[in-house]
């Protein structure tokens, strides 16, 4: 199914300025003719509003429709901190009172990336201005979220993984201390997709984070002194670590990257006090290694059975089965369960690994104390397209068919917006949020994706128009949820790919024939989208087309302002209800970081974002790749040939506030 907003593209002239994102509402009616009229009119209005640089674009009929559809379900202005679950409201489990800080990568255990601060609102956001900046000195992809704790801002750079503490009580926020872990330089040669780091976590007086060469470190938040340092993996086995850990009940949870390098993926829990390994759950192999035991009750039959981590592979191939974990972890304190997804199966080509290849591309629920798996659901059985399942899970208590249920919401790589019952692992709905050709939907009875055989990859055969491309409908870049609007804010891409002609290649003296993977913009020609999705009504409410993939995270606030950045460097504030552009600022480099908001010692609300393009999508700039080498960065360079004209390297923190 092609989301209707793409139809609007034809009605929009291509001559619009590149910086002018276009807000296109979702089609309101089933009647195609009427829909096109509405869309065209609204698109024209959006373009006009943009060209005026004016925040006062008129609301369109589609937003009215959304409001009508959800008015009963989501009372505007309701806050989430009550913790009570009542039909008609959406809340988050374990919600904490807003303290003006940002202590976890996703702000809270439910991973909503919602800040309860409301000084910056839809009226005054247009006056936002730079309060101060900080240069990290590291010019690689900046994917991390800064932390703010006790009037100190902490940030982790890409390799060499410096940790800075900035003193917010002093003018200009000078460096309080800097911690340098000195990771092995060789680790840079092992990481698959730039040398990024997705940030740190604060708990009980310490900052915890990971280095590219597989160390987890605990650093005293006041002094910057290392408390402990534990090595979890080996770069010579293809292992690296890029993810931000989460601390749950005294356990630091860390996952490994390197699914393409012949690793055997895992999630490890370390004792936060000592750094000793408490448990490790592998993602391939026998149940005892995967920590599957008597408590394991997957909802669907295809995830049930003994030692599926062995039997769903040809003999022994699970030893190098991939299935790392380099994304996000959520936690439900009530159920005492953590939720996370694994990366794809590898490094064998799909024909050499018939079977489901468990537990690659799988969503797990585990007990954080013991690591025991409680349920699992494999998103992409026998993955052929590099669809990792590491994206974030947002935990909500939300009306489903009129009844409030504890759910887990994901926008995943295959392109579906999944809603699960997070207690049982039952998939309640799975709706496409991008153009999908690689599968034909998800069968809610069996829980299995329905593959599209026409797009199945076979050696020597050309397969075109595989949508979404390998980075998926959405990659690691985390979305946000506002309990005030009841909407999810999804930064994502619109990319398809061809696997086409083969060419001689050469590695370590061994010639082979490489597949030529080329990614390109999906329908409509834009490579990125920022959209708002109503999880109750199960539909898109508005969306904004962006020239480049939206590779930054999203932040939404109680002022009903939503923030994100673009790969050509614009940091944007939108009205969370209408998607109207309120304000934008051009930073020094492309943005692939995660915005946060905090209250400063002066009582003012601030918004912070790291600017510095890179990552898989931005490798062409961060790695200075040749735009003519279309298969570079696993085919991503083909879709990003023009990025060098729009962004140079960077590594700067920008902090914004009202005057």
């Amino acid at each position: 199914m092609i989301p209707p907003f793409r139809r609007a593209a034809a009605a929009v002239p291509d001559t619009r300025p590149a910086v002018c994102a276009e807000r296109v509402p979702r089609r309101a009616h089933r009647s195609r003719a009427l829909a096109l009229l509405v869309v065209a009119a609204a698109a024209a209005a959006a373009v006009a509003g943009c060209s005026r640089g004016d925040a006062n674009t008129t609301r369109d009929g589609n937003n009215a429709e959304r409001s009508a559809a959800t008015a009963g379900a989501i009372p505007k202005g309701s806050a989430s901190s009550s913790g009570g679950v009542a039909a008609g409201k959406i809340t988050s489990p374990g919600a904490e009172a807003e303290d003006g800080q940002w202590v976890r990568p996703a702000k809270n255990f439910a991973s909503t990336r919602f800040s309860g601060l409301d000084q910056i609102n839809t009226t005054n956001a247009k006056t936002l201005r730079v309060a101060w900046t900080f240069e990290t000195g590291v010019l690689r992809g900046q994917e991390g979220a800064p932390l703010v704790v006790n009037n100190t801002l902490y940030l982790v750079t890409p390799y060499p993984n410096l940790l800075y503490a900035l003193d917010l009580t002093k003018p200009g926020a000078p460096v309080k201390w800097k911690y340098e872990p000195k990771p092995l330089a060789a680790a840079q040669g092992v990481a698959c997709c730039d040398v990024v780091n997705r940030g740190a976590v604060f708990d009980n007086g310490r900052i915890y984070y990971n280095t590219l060469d597989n160390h987890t470190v605990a650093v005293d938040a006041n002094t910057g002194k290392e408390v402990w340092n534990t090595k979890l993996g080996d770069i010579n086995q293809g292992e690296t670590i890029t993810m931000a850990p989460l601390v749950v009940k005294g356990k630091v949870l860390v996952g490994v990257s390197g699914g393409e390098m012949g690793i055997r993926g895992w999630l490890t829990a370390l004792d936060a006090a000592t750094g000793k390994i408490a448990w490790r759950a592998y993602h391939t192999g026998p149940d005892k290694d995967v920590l599957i035991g008597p408590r394991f009750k997957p909802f669907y039959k295809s995830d049930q059975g003994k030692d599926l981590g062995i039997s769903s592979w040809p003999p022994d191939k699970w030893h190098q089965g991939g299935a790392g974990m380099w994304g996000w972890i959520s936690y439900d304190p009530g159920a005492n369960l953590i939720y996370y997804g694994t990366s794809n199966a590898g490094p064998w080509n799909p024909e050499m690994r018939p079977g489901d290849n468990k537990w690659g591309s799988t969503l797990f629920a585990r007990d954080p104390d013991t690591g025991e798996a409680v349920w699992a659901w494999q998103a992409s059985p026998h993955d052929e397209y590099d669809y990792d399942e590491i994206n974030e899970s947002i935990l909500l208590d939300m009306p489903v068919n009129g009844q409030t249920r504890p759910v887990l919401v994901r926008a995943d790589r295959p392109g579906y917006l999944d809603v699960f019952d997070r207690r049982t692992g039952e998939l309640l709905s799975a709706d496409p949020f991008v153009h999908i050709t690689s599968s034909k939907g998800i069968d809610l009875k069996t829980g299995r994706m329905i593959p599209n055989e026409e797009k199945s990859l076979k050696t020597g055969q050309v397969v075109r128009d595989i949508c979404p491309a390998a980075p998926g409908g959405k990659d690691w870049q985390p979305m946000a949820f506002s309990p005030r609007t009841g909407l999810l804010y999804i930064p994502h891409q619109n990319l398809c790919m061809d696997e086409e002609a083969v060419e001689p290649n050469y590695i370590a003296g061994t010639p082979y024939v490489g597949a030529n993977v080329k990614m390109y913009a999906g329908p409509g020609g834009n490579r990125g989208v920022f959209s708002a999705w109503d999880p109750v009504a199960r539909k898109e409410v508005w969306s904004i087309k962006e020239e480049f993939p939206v590779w930054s995270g999203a932040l939404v606030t109680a002022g009903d302002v939503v923030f994100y950045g673009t790969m050509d460097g614009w940091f944007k504030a939108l009205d969370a209800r209408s998607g109207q552009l309120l304000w934008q600022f051009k930073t020094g480099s492309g943005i692939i970081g995660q915005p946060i908001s905090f209250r400063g010692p002066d009582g003012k609300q601030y918004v912070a974002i790291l600017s510095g393009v890179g990552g898989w999508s931005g490798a062409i700039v961060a790695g200075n790749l040749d735009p003519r080498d279309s298969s570079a960065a696993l085919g991503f360079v083909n879709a990003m040939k023009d990025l060098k004209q729009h962004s140079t390297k960077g590594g700067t923190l920008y902090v914004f506030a009202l005057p």
Partner: protein
Amino acid sequence: MSSRSRKARGGWRVARGDRRAGLTPAVELAVLALPALALLAVTAPWRVASLTPLAPVSVAQAAVVRDHATPHPPPATRALRVCADPNNLPFSNERGEGFENRLAELVAREMGRRVEYTWWAQRRGFWRNTIKAGRCDVVVGLPSGYGPALTTRPYYRSTYVFVTRRGARPPVRSFDDAALRTARVGVQLIGDDYANTPPVAALARRGIVDNVRGYMIYGDYRTPSPPSAIVAAVARREVDVAVAWGPLAGYFARRQRVPLDVVPVSPASDGAAVPFTFDIAMGVRKSDAALRDTLDAILTRRHAAVARILDAYGVPRVGMDSNRVTADAR
């Protein structure tokens, strides 16, 4: 092998994906202690140059501290600037023990020059980071027609081979040999979601899957000759048959404790998409036609010497005798 030499060789580790070379723990601290290199490690886009402080690499070091995008100006001294892997026998290593080292010396001698190496692990990104970055001018071994390069006429053609233990049973000769359905078969894995070595495709196409075992071509870069593990696995009886690229298999098969048979695979090509034989040539930048012509002339003139070097390293060759260099009008 002594621990000293292991250390000296264990220079680097590189991988696919972002295609960078780096240093192993053995040399890591030493490198980080050098301010210039530490700076490089922080600022160098994408890759850290492959250096080892234990080898005389002054020129290479100078080269890698430069901006990647700036072409290296011709050095004052007359040198043939060769880009090579420091730890990849039988092709090359930093001690000059590989056949590509020998070929580089041969060509340089003919040109009245000395060889000057820029060391970089020959993995994805090798071309971009060495010759394309202007650090060096010649790559000794590349598949003929390799996209980014201007290649010479091929100076040898080799093939993927079956490696088996001698005597146990008749050597495997074809992908259609029934023995492959029951034997334990080793293949090399590249570590890319969309590509693997040709034998992987040939076996998969025949449904030979369950008995196939993978060896990462990257191997463990702390050890000498990381891709050699697949041949040792045959000698150790870890697998019964290995399918590997001829030069690598031919060289390491001679160095196992038990006698091994090395037999070219057949068919020579499994459909157009899966060839098993490749012509190997020298490569220069697309703009360096004059250098390419010079190399061509030398390879033609000295084809007998080239063949002797290849013979000395047990490089299996097919379909192209040593005169092919002169005869090939490609």
